[in-house]
């Protein structure tokens, strides 16, 4: 597999392998990114463990490997901007600042969860944090995300909608209907394709006749970039260009994040469609967290400094896991609530 050619990355302003991120880059940003990415990873590992213990049921799609995408993009946002994504959504929730406790308790189906246990892994929302789900129908969130951008356009509030979808959704018809609408009305929407190379078990090469997904918006005049989605700084830089473009009223922007998921599509996916070597190679050579960790250490942080972060993250996740197991199940009366908003 190739994570975009170096020349392609350079042409579009990204960094190739020859020019690693400067060690002097803002250590505060990287420290923050390190912490956020690690929180997602540890959270997801814990979720996988709780699933294994039967505490989480149904579908559970882990984000492990892709953390740099959502963490880098979130750094480009302002208060009031919106985020929407598919069902591989736990990382997005944590990145928008939703509490680990509420997310984990939703995974275990408890009243302390963001949806009071009624949504589960794929359906969580926080209007306060600008997170609009959490959608289980592949591609549906793309039209909905255009609608978030539409609302910004209608209100003329200068906010931007980040609309994430996977390579698996990239050939859905409504994606192109949404591209057309967003371009037609110049909606402030950053469309972000998280290309993790596989839509469930089908590799993108077998599913998409379009080879460079960043060009999929070209017929509508939507500028696109391929980005090394394993490099949080590259993500952030591209994200800043995209968000600025939207805020200036120039219409939508498309980012293809070249990333990789280490785990199966969902918990019951043995991932036999790719080799263990392929996964190991990504983990060892391209891991987004290790990349930042290395820069931080080269830039003057000590192992002890990072251990403090590691421990802090571990404690949050442990606390979330305990909360998610001790928070009660929803009261039986909850079966009947929230079907309709009462009008009288």
């Amino acid at each position, binding site marked *: 597999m190739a994570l975009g050619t170096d020349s392609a990355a350079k042409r579009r302003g990204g960094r190739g392998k020859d020019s690693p991120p400067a060690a002097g880059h803002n250590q505060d940003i990287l420290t923050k990114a390190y912490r956020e990415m690690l929180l997602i990873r540890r959270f997801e590992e814990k979720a996988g463990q709780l699933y294994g213990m039967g505490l989480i049921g149904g579908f559970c799609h882990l984000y492990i490997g892709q953390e740099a995408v959502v963490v880098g993009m979130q750094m480009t946002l302002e208060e009031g901007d919106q985020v929407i994504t598919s069902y591989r959504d736990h990382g997005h929730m944590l990145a928008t600042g939703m509490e680990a406790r509420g997310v984990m308790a939703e995974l275990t189906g408890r009243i302390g969860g963001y949806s009071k*246990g009624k949504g589960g892994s794929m*359906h969580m929302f926080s209007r306060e944090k600008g997170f609009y789900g959490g959608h289980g129908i592949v591609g549906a969130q793309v039209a909905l995300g255009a609608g978030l951008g539409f609302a910004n356009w209608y209100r003329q509030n200068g906010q931007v909608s980040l609309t994430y979808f996977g390579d698996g959704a990239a050939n859905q018809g*409504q994606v192109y209907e949404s591209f057309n609408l967003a371009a037609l009305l110049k909606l402030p929407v950053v469309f972000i394709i998280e290309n993790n190379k596989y839509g469930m078990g089908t590799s993108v090469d077998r599913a998409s006749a379009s080879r460079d997904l960043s060009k999929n918006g070209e017929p509508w005049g939507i500028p696109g970039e391929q980005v090394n989605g394993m490099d949080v700084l590259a993500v952030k830089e591209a994200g800043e260009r995209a968000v600025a473009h939207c805020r200036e009223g120039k219409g939508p922007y498309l980012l293809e994040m070249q990333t990789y998921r280490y785990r199966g599509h969902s918990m*019951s996916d043995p991932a036999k469609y790719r080799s263990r070597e392929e996964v190991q190679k990504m983990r060892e050579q391209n891991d987004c967290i290790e990349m930042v960790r290395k820069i931080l250490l080269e830039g003057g942080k000590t192992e002890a400094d990072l251990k403090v972060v590691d421990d802090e993250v571990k404690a949050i996740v442990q606390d979330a896991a305990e909360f998610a197991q001790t928070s009660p199940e929803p009261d039986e009366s909850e079966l009947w609530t929230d079907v309709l908003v009462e009008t009288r």
Partner: protein
Amino acid sequence: MGATILMPALSPTMTEGKLSRWLKKEGDEVKSGDVLAEIETDKATMEVEAVDEGRITKILVAEGTEGVLVNAAIAELDGGDGSAAPAGDTGTPAAEQGSKAAAPQQPESNATQHGGDVGSMAKQAEDYGQVAARGAERREGVAAEPKASTAAPEKDWGPTKPITVREALRDAMALEMRADGDVFLMGEEVAQYQGAYKISQGLLDEFGARRVLDMPITEHGFTGMAVGAALTGLKPIVEFMTFNFSMQAIDHIINSAAKTLYMSGGQLGCPIVFRGPNGAAARVAAQHSQDFTSWYAHVPGLKVIAPWSAADAKGLLRAAIRDPNPVIFLENEILYGQTFECPVDEDFVLPIGKAKVEREGTDVTIVSYSIMVGMAMQAAEELAQAGISAEVINLRTIRPLDIDTVLASVRKTNRLVTLEEGWAFANVGGEVAMQVIENAFDYLDAPPVRVAGADVPMPYAANLEKLALPTVAQVVEAVRKVTYK
């Protein structure tokens, strides 16, 4: 303190599996994410990755062991800071099932798992308190089970004047758009063309291109976009040129609009109206003639309205636009040009969920909605001449269904006929009849009868189309059947 590695469940249905291979041995250091072992489930061979870090001190289940129960201890770790995985019920030790597996570790006590001391338990209790309080706040202003209104009799709105259904719909939208800047109209040909059926005539001029938006012919995309906008609190009116085209967008209507309030635990409502002509027009054949009422009425989280008169159209469309829920508003093309008396009061609005007795009678109850209410009225007139007194109920709202009004009528007449254009199978009449049977069986003097469209795709030929739709004669015959006259 060490950690115990448990046999994981690797699918929603797995209860046991074969530990086919260890990839680590005793004494090995493991990092989070390392593959520890391979496990064969009934479906596939899966890899088990480490979550906790440390050194494997003991392997408790040898490789090749079959029938290892989920949550049985399979190895022990030391080191790290020992976030021992809280063991659930480990179940019957595999060994007792004649397996070679080692007996699982004693599960730790609850107190140990959850932090152990009274202080931390108290803190958790406090947390639930906060969560519960938040839940209660959210619940406020949120309905329990959707129920038809049993409010007082309909208000007398005073003087009326004759207007067409078309004018009623346009006036309703204009009034609500004047009152609320968050309301806007979008759809195919709604702006510059003034509406494919001229329902939105004049709205572009009054409200401008930001609030009256022509859409490309992409129902799936623009419906999703409208639902997304509604999730932020805007109040879109989406016009479908006909509801037949809403099939392109039904995923967003049901999965994105109707279910999100529930899936979000009451956080995210979707105040949106989907409106347009539904059912048969004239000679437009199978793909443009379907009645979708029972499709949408099936879905919790939606309200479904099917007006007949101009007053229904105006009063209920205003109510639909103000409603904080997704509302399906099913119009009828043939009714657009028909004229009815409608209150002139600026504030005129009708309650959702309230049926109307259009004609009082004593011998039979005819329940209908939309254009078929007109046919029911014709049939009642004919029946009156034959000495049969029919009561006609215009449902107006299909969900929530005002069954109380129907029951009160049936308790009086003891006979029920339902009438609609749609196919009989699983239709609205079937639901009405069943609810009557459930709630007023003893009052019925005859089995209810449904009059419905023929169970075929709508034909084009004029004579066949006529045969496919209900007729006054069929209604009269149905009434004679239930009244034994």
